[in-house]
Every structure is written in C-alpha cells, then in structure tokens.
C-alpha cells in the first residue's frame, strides 16, 4: 500500500478496523500470544514481587540495601539489554541452553519477568512504606500478632500494590526490545485471509507491528496498533480507577 497519500492512509485505517471486526485469525493469534506472554510474566513477577516487597519491609537481612539498589536499578533497565542477556543465557551454548527455550514463548516470559519484577517490587515497596506505623501499632494494641500486622499492612497498601501489578502488565504489553530478541517474532508459514503469515508462535502485537510496518502492510499494523493501544489503555484506566478509589 502506498502510504504517501492521505486517502490510502484512511483506507488503511478502515481496513484495519475490518481486520479486527472480522476476527482475523492471524491478528487474533498475535493478540493471544501478547496476552499469554505478558499475562504470565505479570503473574509470575507478582508472585515474586509482593513477598519480596514484604520481606524488604518487615525483615532485616544481610545485603538488603544492595538488593534494594538492585531493584531500583532494575526498574529502569533497557528492554533490549535484558533481551540480550536472556538471549545469551538461553542459546544452546548459554548457561540455560539445556532448557532449549530460545525463540519460544517461555524465553519471552522469562525476559519480561526479569524486566517487570523490579517494577512491581519497587512500586509495591513504596506503597507498603506509605502505610503509617500507627496502623501497625494499632494492630498490636488491639491484640494482633506480627502476622496480623503484615496482613493489615497488605490490606492498607492494596490499592498501591494493584497499581504496581497493572504498571508491570502495561509495561510488559508495550515492550518490544526484549521479546523481539529472545522470541524472534516467529509465525507459522502460510497465510491467512490474504494478510501476514500463519498463526503466531512468538509474534506479539508489538513485534508484529515492527515487522508488518517494515514490510509495508500498514492496515495490518494499524489493526495491531489499535488492539495494543486498547489493551494498554484499559490497563491504565483500570489503574487510574483503582487509585481514585483510594
């Protein structure tokens, strides 16, 4: 498609919507991979981050300050760098080579897990820190145990923690550099409905947009872009809504 004229850009947008509303299998499979990879990475990262944030808030151990520094650094890691490191780990000659996961969704999940665990931990930590000491003392004064104090803190920080998880999910969905390197943007051979290739293996909304755009298939890119932005926007709206309830 020639994208230099306004007319064909409009056609591209119309075609893009058509692709979405016709539930094109290629587009659906890409969306599915995005949600699967980023969703799984977010769940795993949350399962690590929340206990970690609590351990950092309620216990003292050697190397705690170093770990906090590591988390703060991790919050701003460039995705391509994480992608490169994970790639070097999972290639056959790498330390995780035996897992045989290079260019699979598992490797993509691993990369995004590394990318967003620090983000979820850092924001959760801030939310837990914001719970006043007087809340914990109130638990004790009402006869509560240390466990009760931890549970009460979790409850008080709940909105902040949910915001942290959604921030991680939003970041994962929008991320391209790491998953492109470790996943390889692979789709099966063949073509469906005249566009793109076969169903997605490791192709996500973001990586597909890069490849479809460079191939010149603007309407497919637009369809993918609309879905991506809707997903990210929904996550952000949800996060905003929860924050306002706080």
């Amino acid at each position, binding site marked *: 498609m020639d994208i230099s004229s306004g007319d064909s850009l409009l056609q591209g947008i119309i075609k893009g919507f058509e692709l979405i509303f016709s539930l094109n299998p290629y587009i659906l499979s890409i969306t599915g991979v995005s949600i699967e990879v980023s969703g799984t990475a977010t769940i795993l990262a949350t399962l690590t981050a929340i206990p970690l944030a609590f351990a950092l808030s309620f216990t003292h151990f050697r190397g705690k300050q170093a770990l906090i520094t590591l988390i703060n650094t991790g919050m701003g890691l460039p995705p391509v760098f994480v992608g490169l490191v994970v790639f070097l780990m999972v290639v056959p000659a790498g330390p995780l080579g035996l897992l045989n996961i290079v260019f699979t969704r598992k490797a993509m999940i691993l990369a995004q897990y590394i990318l967003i665990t620090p983000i979820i931990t850092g924001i959760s930590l801030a939310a837990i820190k914001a719970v006043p000491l007087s809340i914990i*003392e109130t638990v*004790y*004064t*009402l*006869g509560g145990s240390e466990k009760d104090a931890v549970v009460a803190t979790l*409850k008080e920080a709940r909105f902040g923690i949910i915001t942290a998880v959604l921030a991680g999910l939003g970041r994962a969905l929008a991320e391209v550099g790491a998953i492109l390197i470790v996943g390889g943007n692979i789709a099966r051979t063949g073509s469906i409905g005249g566009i793109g290739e076969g169903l997605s293996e490791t192709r996500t909304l973001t990586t597909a947009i890069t490849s479809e755009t460079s191939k010149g298939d603007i309407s497919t890119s637009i369809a993918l872009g609309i879905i991506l932005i809707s997903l990210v926007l929904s996550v952000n709206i949800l996060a905003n809504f929860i924050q306002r309830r706080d």
Partner: protein
Amino acid sequence: MFRVENLSKSFGNKEVLKKINLEIFRGEVFALMGPSGVGKTTLLRILNFLETPTDGKMMFNGRECAIRQKNTVMHKMSMLFQRPALFNSSVFNNVAYGLIIRGVDKKTIGKKVIEALNLVGLAGYEKQRALTLSGGEAQRMVFARAIVYSPDLLLLDEPTSNLDPANVAKIEEIIKKIRSEHGTTIVIATHNIPQVRRIADRVGILLNGELIEVNSKEKIFTNPGDARSAAFIKGEMIY
C-alpha cells in the same frame, strides 16, 4: 491489676522516664497528668508493650510480664493513640477488627459491633468508610474498636485534646459508661485539669519524667502533697 516498679526509659542519652513506681487498681479511672513532653505517651506506650523500658519491672495481675508473654497480656488491653489510626475500610470492619483476629464467630461479631457502636453513639454508621468520618466521629469509632472485645485495661492518650467541646463531652460520657457498664480499668493521659476533675478517681502527676505525686483526686485538688503539683493544678505551671 497493673504495677510498674522502678521503670526507666531513655531514648539515646535522653532520660524520659526516671524510676517510675505506680500501681493501677482494677476498675479505676487513673489520670496521668503533666505538661506536654514529660513522658505521658512514653509511659502509656510502655504499658502497652509498644516500647520496651530501659530498666524496671512490669507486673500484670500480680505476674511479671516478660516480653514473651506480651501477646497474652496485650489480648486483654487496648490503647487509644493521640491521633487515631483508621483502617481504610468500613466502620464495621474497623470496629470488628479485634474480634476478627480473635477468631470470634460472625454472628457474635455482628452483635458486639452493633453494641459497641451504640455505646459510642455511632449506630447506623456501619457501612460508612472510616476515612470519611469527622474527627469526633473517628475518635468515637476507635473507642468502639478498642472496647468491642472487652479489654480489662484501656489506655487513653489525650483522647480529647483535638476535639470540640461537644465531642469532648461525648467522649467523657463514653468513658464513664465503659467504666460503669464494663468495669474496665482506664488510664488516661491528659493535661486537661477540668476533665480530670470530672472523670478521674486517682491522679498521678508526671513532671520531667518523674512521678512526683500519686493521690486520690480529692486529695490532689484540695491538699496536694507536693508544691509542684499544687502549682500545676492551679495552672501556674508554664507549659
């Protein structure tokens, strides 16, 4: 019911409490008086195990309490802070908290919460979010939260210092009711002299970390045993 012997507390080099000896009797309202900064809050926090004393002994019902028994003892007492801390939840959940962590069954919790809210004049507030209560309502809610599990000992840290006269009167009514209906022993830190006249049985005067006089209210107000207590009560003490 509660006795402290030679209790001292320092924060760094600063000695805040100096060899305090004090006995609190079952069922009384004991007023801990003294100007700001003399250590009233610190003493209450030690009695509530939120602070560990630097030195001295604490006895609860005739038995010395070591830190390891703190949970059993804490189950029977409650403290109200100068600034109430509210859980970000409904009034019901706030008041029910002490019962929930004690594993009380739902039906009993419902009944006791309603009773406690009635006692503090907050009937019908169950569903309201605690953070939307006014200052006076919040203070009354934390009273309900503290008494719902019928503690033997209630420690009150200047419970009316931030309130308007109408709410002060309500809180004093609540204190009298808790005492008469539940027989709860109450220790109240305050520098409000008229309030002490209205609600206390005995008074202790704390000055610069020393308990300079402990006496019945009548004695303290008519015939104080210490010149400094006399000055404090007459309001001659600058603070």
